[in-house]
């Protein structure tokens, strides 16, 4: 059995619960990662199992040019590229199928076939109507929403032309995508084409394979994910600043704890309402609890945090640890990043694990299927299950004290409003402060947790290093939760952690130095923020001109690879930590890390040390500042008349 050498977490609450798990005889992902070492061939992207002649292990490392080929003749380059873009396909499919689910619910709600759902943000509805040429006039919101829903759904199965949201990107970026032949025709089509091209004996040129990966990823970021974000905003409200709390300490000993976990907020939005229903609260009190305490894990949690301030119990690697507290009466899950171990751990305590999506069943879990036509009843059944399980709690309860305040809700629209006000909403103050050097640049730090590195450590180390160097950080997903636990998402954090320039801007505007933009589909908000910076002017005319960078220091999911790929394809330097899935081919890795810049203006990088990775990002930001001519403070000279005459005579 391999001994684990890295520290498991920097979060005290998590470490305490790991100790309790060990005492209780419960095994978690941290234990399993210690017991099972990574497959070196698979981790390097060198294992091809796409046909029954294999699996073939084919390494293509410099100095070993005589390396073997797969049985079909595939080279290490082909295999690494195939594996890489299949990861893109998996990630893009996950985000986009989420988007499709939202679009279906949206259309049903517009047609009055989904009781409990309504249009909460008319402004966002009108925004899409203007964008997609839907008639507004005197039509009702429902009539407009039917048109919007049908157009959105059609984006997934479109066969030709371009997906609609590409028109939001900077004009130069749109030209580049068309010139390179990577403008997606339809969201699903590009994913399906990856699966076709990577089948035995189809596309065997890694340049061509990787280009299709770019195309599918753009269809995710500027397609499926963006549709999910926009339609969720219309249905549930566009996020605006709200106070929240994070970490296992948000669980309450004397209340029914219902934890919501996954990525799709369609059912959880109704659960939020049902948990406040006086009938449910009375039932909870009748069972001996003081009330109903909702909290969340992963990105469904981020969604309901951003819109309602519902507290976060923790990020991906805390899902098992939440159960170990012994205080969770039910954990309701929807889709993505849900560990199959949950029902096993739940058996050691009293927790009910409730699956709700027909796409995500888990043996041992109670299944209460989400039905958009009857969401209210489903939500009531779930909340009732949690309440009725409250008296079954044993005595083995230990809730960590740790919880941290956070200010969240920074959608693109809200940033625009906060910086410019109602009558002149604008990114101008941000651009001006980047140009004058108070803010060095902007970094998007996103992604998962991975037990192959110290939980939360790489996120927090990187983010602290960036803000110390006057880089404004915007975050989503589990990465945002890590920073929030350290207290980086409060306005006070600016004075404590940020450099002098960034701190002065944050104090003036009244924002934290680290902004929470939402869930992982909400990385599309980062694309919108970057585009707004370009369009406001003074920082070049494409995203690749901006002093910005991206990172996923603790990534683990295919979704993260797709996100990284659409950031790179949008012109952003993007560095990943922990591991890199093409190291089995020097040529493919070089193509992603170097050659991509000439084509897309953005490149990938890999650096497991978060401080070094932060400095790679800062170096890139400085390179862009130099290219823009804003790398040095310029002396301001007040010209007198004589100096003006001299100037005119030149």
């Amino acid at each position, binding site marked *: 059995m391999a001994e684990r050498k890295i520290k498991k977490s920097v979060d005290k609450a998590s470490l305490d619960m790991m100790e309790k798990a060990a005492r209780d005889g419960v095994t978690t992902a941290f234990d399993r990662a210690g017991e099972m070492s990574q497959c070196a061939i698979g981790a390097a992207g060198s294992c091809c199992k796409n046909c029954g002649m294999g699996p073939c292990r084919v390494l293509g490392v410099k100095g070993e040019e005589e390396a073997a080929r797969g049985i079909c003749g595939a080279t290490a380059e082909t295999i690494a590229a195939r594996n890489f873009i299949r990861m893109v396909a998996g990630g893009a499919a996950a985000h986009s199928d989420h988007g499709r689910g939202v679009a279906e619910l949206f259309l049903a709600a517009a047609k009055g076939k989904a009781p409990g759902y309504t249009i909460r943000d008319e*402004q966002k509805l009108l*925004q899409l109507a*203007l964008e997609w040429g839907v008639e507004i006039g005197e039509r009702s919101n429902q009539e407009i929403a039917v048109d919007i829903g049908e157009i959105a759904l059609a984006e997934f199965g479109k066969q030709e032309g371009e997906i609609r949201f590409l028109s939001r990107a900077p004009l130069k970026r749109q030209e580049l995508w068309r010139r390179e032949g990577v403008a997606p025709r339809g969201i699903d089509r590009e994913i399906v084409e990856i699966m076709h091209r990577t089948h035995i004996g189809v596309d065997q040129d890694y340049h061509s394979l990787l280009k299709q990966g770019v195309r599918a990823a753009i269809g995710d970021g500027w397609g499926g994910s963006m549709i999910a974000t926009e339609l969720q905003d219309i249905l549930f409200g566009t996020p*605006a600043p709200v106070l929240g709390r994070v970490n296992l300490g948000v669980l309450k000993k004397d209340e029914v704890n219902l934890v919501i976990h996954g990525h799709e907020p369609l059912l959880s939005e109704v659960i939020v309402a049902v948990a406040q229903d006086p009938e449910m609260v009375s039932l909870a009190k009748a069972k001996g609890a003081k009330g109903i305490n909702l909290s969340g894990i992963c990105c469904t949690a981020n969604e309901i945090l951003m819109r309602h301030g519902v507290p976060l119990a923790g990020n991906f690697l805390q899902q098992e640890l939440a159960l170990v507290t012994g205080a969770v009466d039910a954990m309701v899950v929807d889709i993505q990043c849900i560990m199959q171990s949950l029902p096993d751990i739940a058996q050691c305590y009293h927790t009910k694990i409730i699956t709700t999506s027909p796409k995500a069943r888990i043996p041992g879990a109670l299944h209460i299927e989400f039905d958009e036509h009857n969401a209210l009843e489903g939500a009531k059944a779930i909340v009732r299950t949690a309440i009725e399980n409250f008296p079954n709690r044993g005595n083995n309860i230990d809730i960590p004290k740790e919880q941290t*305040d956070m200010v969240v809700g920074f959608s693109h629209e*809200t940033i625009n409003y906060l910086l410019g006000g109602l009558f002149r*909403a604008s990114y101008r103050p941000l651009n001006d402060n980047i140009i004058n050097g108070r803010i060095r640049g902007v970094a998007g730090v996103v992604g998962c947790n991975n037990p192959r590195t110290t939980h939360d450590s790489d996120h927090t180390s990187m983010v602290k290093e960036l803000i110390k160097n006057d880089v404004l950080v915007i975050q989503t997903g589990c990465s945002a939760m890590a920073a929030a636990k350290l207290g980086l998402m409060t306005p006070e954090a600016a004075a404590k952690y940020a450099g002098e320039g960034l701190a002065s801007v944050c104090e003036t505007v009244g924002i934290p130095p680290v902004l929470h933009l939402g869930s992982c589909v909400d990385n599309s908000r980062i694309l919108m923020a970057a585009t707004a910076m370009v369009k*406001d002017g003074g920082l070049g005319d494409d995203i690749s001109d901006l002093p910005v960078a991206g990172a996923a220091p603790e990534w683990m999911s295919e979704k993260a690879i797709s996100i990284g790929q659409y950031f790179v394809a949008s012109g952003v330097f993007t560095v990943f930590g922990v591991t890199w899935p093409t190291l089995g081919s020097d040529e493919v890795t070089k193509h992603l890390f170097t050659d991509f810049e000439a084509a897309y203006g953005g490149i990938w990088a890999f650096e497991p040390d978060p401080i070094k990775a932060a400095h790679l990002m800062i170096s890139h930001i400085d390179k862009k500042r130099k290219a823009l001519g804003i790398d040095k403070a310029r002396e301001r000279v007040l010209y007198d008349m004589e100096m003006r005459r001299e100037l005119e005579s030149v």
Partner: protein
Amino acid sequence: MDYEIEEKGAPNREKVEVLGATYEAGKPDGEDDGRWRHKLASRDEKLRYLRSGERYWYGKDWYGSEKRKNPA
């Protein structure tokens, strides 16, 4: 509310008393404290906001840094 008074000095000037930072201590407790979209009540106001606040996408006269004769 009690106003904070601070004493400030400057070179070659006598010290003066100025109004200091005055705020209500504590954390905001209302969910609606940060909400701003309700400030735009009517559909007309919302459309006008989109054409000014999000002018680079929805305004007819604005392209920001991308103003050019020929659209991409």
